Structure formats: structure tokens, C-alpha cells
């Protein structure tokens, strides 16, 4: 049996190493460590605004992380969440600008559906290429990210451009295409609710339905699926579509809840962060929520730490990257600790 205690200890040691690294880096800046840490804490818990900020940042991470983890379960490495998010954002912008007079009750669901479809289609293409032609999705999805970004840029300079604005941004969307603020005085919008609802739905789908079983089986052992009559290609395609769709919804929520117009740069690499969220969350919806909140905490806290003690907020990327790298090396570093003994098969 696996040495569970050993496993746990190795994870704790990695977290500890992360904290030590953070303190070390703060030390290098020459600024007061206590100032920095208190700034960090204030940034994430000092006021209702701060706490809300964490969840604001966590929302797109939860959604894209969910998407990536669904894909992972089927063996599809979706690095394209970034592009899929943007396609969702484009969709809501286009729909909202085209139908400004629709009541919110119709427009918002329409935009969410449209965003899901747009992100889904964007992910579907690499999915089909993998399922039907065996083309690796790793590079493909990255390429589609850049193509999506380019499309956004082109649209913002042409079709979607706000005529009254010099810069390539879209016109501000009407309130009917907006998500309401949940706590006044903060930026927390109902996107977080959408994210949590999606997590619950995905949990039900993946772990409690027969389709979900097939999606998982295909990732566990495609050969056994073949022998059992489960179509591997079809389920990779379905998985990639759901994955992209969730990222598309993330894009919709960012526009509807936060920016209220389409600009380049609504995503500071959420798509790539999503992979880390999925990894840390164990490809499990509730793990994803926790991981997303954890990463958001790190990011929001680091921003506050920068304001309070001049510690560059880039520190969060360093810690995050380092933790993932340590996780990758975990089994080798802690080999003696995690002594695996398997029963004779």
C-alpha cells in the first residue's frame, strides 16, 4: 500500500519550501519582512474589499481550471484555455452590441450559451484533429491561443471598435449584459456564483453520470475502452468541447462582471495558470476551487505586498512556478519517504 503519511509529509514540505522561498525573496529586496507579510495579509483579509478581490480573481481561474481538468481527465492536454476565454469574451461583446435592447433575463443566458459554444468550438478543432488524425494537441492549442488573440486584436480595430474611442476597445456594454455586484463596495460579481455552479455541475457530470464515466475511462485506459466498445475519439471530442466551453464562460464572466467592454489584455495568462490550477486541484472540481482560491490569494496578496513594502508582485509567479517544479520532482526527491509497495499482481 502507498505510504500515505509519507505522501502527506512530502506535500507539506513542498509548501513549507514555498513559504521559505517567499521569505527569502522578500529578504533579498531589502525591505522589512514583517511589513511585507502584514501587507500580504491585509491584502487578502484586511477588508471586505480585499477578501472579495480574492474571489474576483479566483472566478476565471475556477472556470478555466475546471475546463482544463475535464480535458485532462480524458487525456486531452488543453493549453488553449487562454484563446477559448477570449472567444467567449468576443461572443458576449458581439451579442451585447448587436442586441442592446434585450432584457437581461434573456441576454445574459444567451451570452453564457454563446460563450460556451464559442469556447467549445475553439477547443473542438484541436480536439477533432487529435481524435481523427492523431495530431498532438499540445502545440495546436498554443497556436490557437495566439490566433484567438490576433482575432481579438483585428476585431477591436475593425468591427467591434468603439467609434468614439481612439484606442482599440469596444464600446461599453449595456447593463443588460452585466453581472451584478454581490457585495456593494467590492468588485465581487455574480461570476463567482456561476463558477461554483459550474463546478457542482461538472462534478455531477464527471463523477455521477455515465457520460462522465466514459470521459474518464478514455483518459485512464483508451485500449480497454476500445475493447469494451467505448468510442475513444468521440469522447475526446466531447471532452475538449466541454473544456473549451468552460473557458469561454470564463471570458463571458470577465467581461460581464469586471470590464464591461472588450479590450486586449483581459487575461493575464489565465489560460496557462489554469493548467497549474488543474494540477494543484488534482483534476477534481472542488480541488480546483481550492487551488484557484489559493492561487488568487497568492496573487492578490502579492499585489498588496508590493504596495505595502515594495516587493515586486512578480514574486507570486516565482513561488507558483517553483511549487509546481517541486511537485514534478516530488517523487524523486522524497523517494525514500514515499516508499511504494504494490501487492503482487
Amino acid at each position, binding site marked *: 500500500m502507498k505510504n500515505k503519511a509519507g505522501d502527506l509529509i512530502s506535500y507539506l514540505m513542498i509548501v513549507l519550501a514555498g513559504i521559505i522561498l517567499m521569505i527569502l525573496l522578500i529578504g533579498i529586496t531589502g525591505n522589512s519582512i514583517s511589513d511585507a507579510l502584514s501587507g500580504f495579509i491585509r491584502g487578502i483579509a484586511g477588508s471586505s474589499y480585499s477578501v472579495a478581490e480574492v474571489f474576483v480573481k479566483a472566478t476565471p481561474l475556477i472556470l478555466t481550471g475546471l475546463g482544463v481538468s475535464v480535458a485532462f481527465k480524458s487525456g486531452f492536454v488543453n493549453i488553449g484555455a487562454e484563446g477559448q476565454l477570449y472567444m467567449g469574451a468576443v461572443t458576449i461583446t458581439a451579442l451585447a452590441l448587436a442586441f442592446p435592447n434585450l432584457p437581461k433575463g434573456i441576454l445574459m443566458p444567451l451570452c453564457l450559451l454563446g460563450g460556451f459554444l464559442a469556447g467549445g468550438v475553439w477547443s473542438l478543432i484541436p480536439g477533432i484533429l487529435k481524435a481523427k*488524425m*492523431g495530431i498532438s494537441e499540445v502545440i495546436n492549442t*498554443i497556436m*490557437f491561443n495566439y490566433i484567438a488573440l*490576433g482575432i481579438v486584436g*483585428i476585431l477591436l480595430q*475593425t468591427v467591434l471598435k468603439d467609434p468614439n474611442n481612439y484606442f482599440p476597445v469596444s464600446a461599453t456594454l449595456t447593463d443588460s449584459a452585466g453581472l451584478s455586484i454581490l457585495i456593494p463596495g467590492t468588485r465581487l460579481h455574480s461570476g463567482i456564483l456561476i463558477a461554483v455552479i459550474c463546478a457542482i455541475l461538472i462534478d455531477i457530470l464527471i463523477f455521477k453520470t455515465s457520460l462522465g464515466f466514459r470521459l474518464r475511462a478514455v483518459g485512464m485506459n483508451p485500449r480497454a475502452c476500445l475493447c469494451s466498445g467505448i468510442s475513444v475519439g468521440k469522447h475526446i471530442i466531447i471532452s475538449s468541447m466541454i473544456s473549451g466551453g468552460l473557458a469561454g464562460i470564463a471570458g463571458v464572466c470577465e467581461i460581464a462582471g469586471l470590464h464591461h467592454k472588450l479590450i486586449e489584455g483581459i487575461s493575464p495568462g489565465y489560460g496557462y495558470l489554469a493548467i497549474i490550477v488543474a494540477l494543484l486541484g488534482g483534476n477534481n472540481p472542488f480541488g480546483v476551487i481550492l487551488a484557484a482560491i489559493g492561487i488568487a490569494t497568492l496573487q492578490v496578496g502579492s499585489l498588496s505586498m508590493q504596495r505595502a513594502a515594495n516587493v515586486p508582485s*512578480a514574486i507570486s509567479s516565482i513561488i507558483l*512556478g517553483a511549487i*509546481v517544479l517541486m511537485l514534478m520532482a516530488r517523487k524523486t526527491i522524497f523517494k525514500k519517504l514515499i516508499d511504494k509497495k504494490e501487492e503482487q499482481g
Partner: protein
Amino acid sequence: MSQILLTIATFLAACIRMATPLTLAGLGEAFSERTGVMNLGVEAIMLCGAFSSFIVTFWTGNVYWGMLCGMLAGMIISGIHAILCIKCKANQTIVGLALNFFALGLTSFLFLIVFGQSTILPQCKTVPNFEFPVLGKIPLLGKAFFTHNIFVYLMYLLVFIFLFIYKKTEWGVIFTAVGEHPSAADTAGINVFRIRYLACMVNGLLGGLAGSYFTLAQLGFFMEDITAGKGYIALVTVILGRRNPLGILCSALLIGLADAVQFQLQTMNIPIPSQAFSILPYIAAVFVLLFSAGKSSDPSALGIPYERDNR
């Protein structure tokens, strides 16, 4: 007439300059992939190369020390990737992406620590352009191809060296074997792990050199995320160029061409969005992947950690 030719020559020269860092990084990545190790962390390597070369040149005033340290930094990042992927047999995709995060954070962090926030970016010395002996004197062609800085000449040399090694030497055969059928290479007595580590180190060295190009040859300063995705474009040149050194150079030139055309159009105030050109390489890459499906030219063991199969 001669004015037009001169413009073309200048244009070509610009293409070469834009293609240089992509080619350098591409050559390194192609070598790594040839032996079976895919490195998505090219971005990280280039960033660290850019940063270290900048800092060292800034402090010492010597560009050559800067170049050296750039290459060294690249090798360190690549070394981390190598150990994780070869020894720890970790997933090459995730390690690459994590390194990109790490490097972006680290370089931004260190830059801010050393230089603080300021509106004026600190500058460093840059490499001089010089005329290549003899070849530089050729009218027009000399101006286009042989009046550049040392990075460009190194690039030419490396393209040639790699071509030679791959096609004409036993080493090339060994690299192919390691990436294509590592157990055959292993049975033949070749140390698969050592070869892969070597390829990763070279990848780091060249990627670091490529990164240094941005600071020491192109811009003369460093800023956060100076590479802005060029690492991924280097991966594109590897795909478009089918891992062939000349192919990589040509793809890089084409990408440079697209860039240059885009600039030109902007200066002429033609309202075609720049993105229409900048996405072309990516679309091309997807098509190349599409058409090479089935007859895959990927080394068969690409991305798969090697384990001695002890039956």
C-alpha cells in the same frame, strides 16, 4: 532603380535581424527534440538569457561577458528542465510551462529589485554592427546579409554546423537513434541519458544566446516580459522548418518578413491591423501539423521519458 534595390537590401537585412533570435532558439529546440526531449520552456530560457546578459553588460560594460552569462543562464534553466524530465521523468509539457512562469516572475522580480521602478529604462552597451570581411563588400548582397552584428554571423555558422553534424557525421546518426528508437540506441551501447542531457544543455545555451540578442543587439535595455511570446514563435519555426536547420532559418525569415511588412504598412498608414500578419505564422503551423499527420516526422520517442525495460 538602384533606390529600389537598396530598399530591398535594407528590407532583407531587417528580416535577417528579426529572424536571428528565432533561428538561434529554434536550432537549440530542434536539437533537443531530435533526441526526444520537448522543451516548452524556451520562453523561460530566452528571458533568463536576456536578463543575465543585460545585467552583466550593464555592470561590466563588456558585451561579450554579457553574452557568455546569457548563455550560462539559459543552460541553468535548461538544466532544471533536463533533470526534471530526464531523471524525474516528469511531464515535459507541465515542466516547460511552469518554468515559463517561474522565469517571468524571477526576471521581473530581480530587475525591479536591482533597478527599481523608473520611467527611464537603464541602458547597456550593445554589440556593434560590422562588415564581414570580403563578403561584406559585395554590392547589395553584402549590405543585406553581411553587414550585421556577431549574433547574426554566429547564426549563419550554427546553421551550417548543425546541418553538417546532422547529415555528415556519426553524431547525427546517434542523435537520430536516441530520439527515434532509444532502446535500439541503448542496446547498441549508446548512453541515451547522456545524449539527452547534452542536447538540453545546448538548447539552453542557444536559447540563452537568443535571449541576449534582444538586450544586446536589438534594444539595448531590458524590460519585463521582453520576449513576449517569442519563445513560442521559436517553437513554431521548429514545426514549420520540420526540425531542419535550413528550414528553421527560412521559417524564421518568413516570420521576420511578415513582421517587417507589418511595420512597413503601419508607417504607410494602411489600416490593416498588425495582427492580421502576426497570426500568420501560427495559422501556418497548424496547417503544417495538419498535413504532416500520418507521416509524422516527429521522433518517435519525443516527449516520452526513457526507461530501461527490464523484462
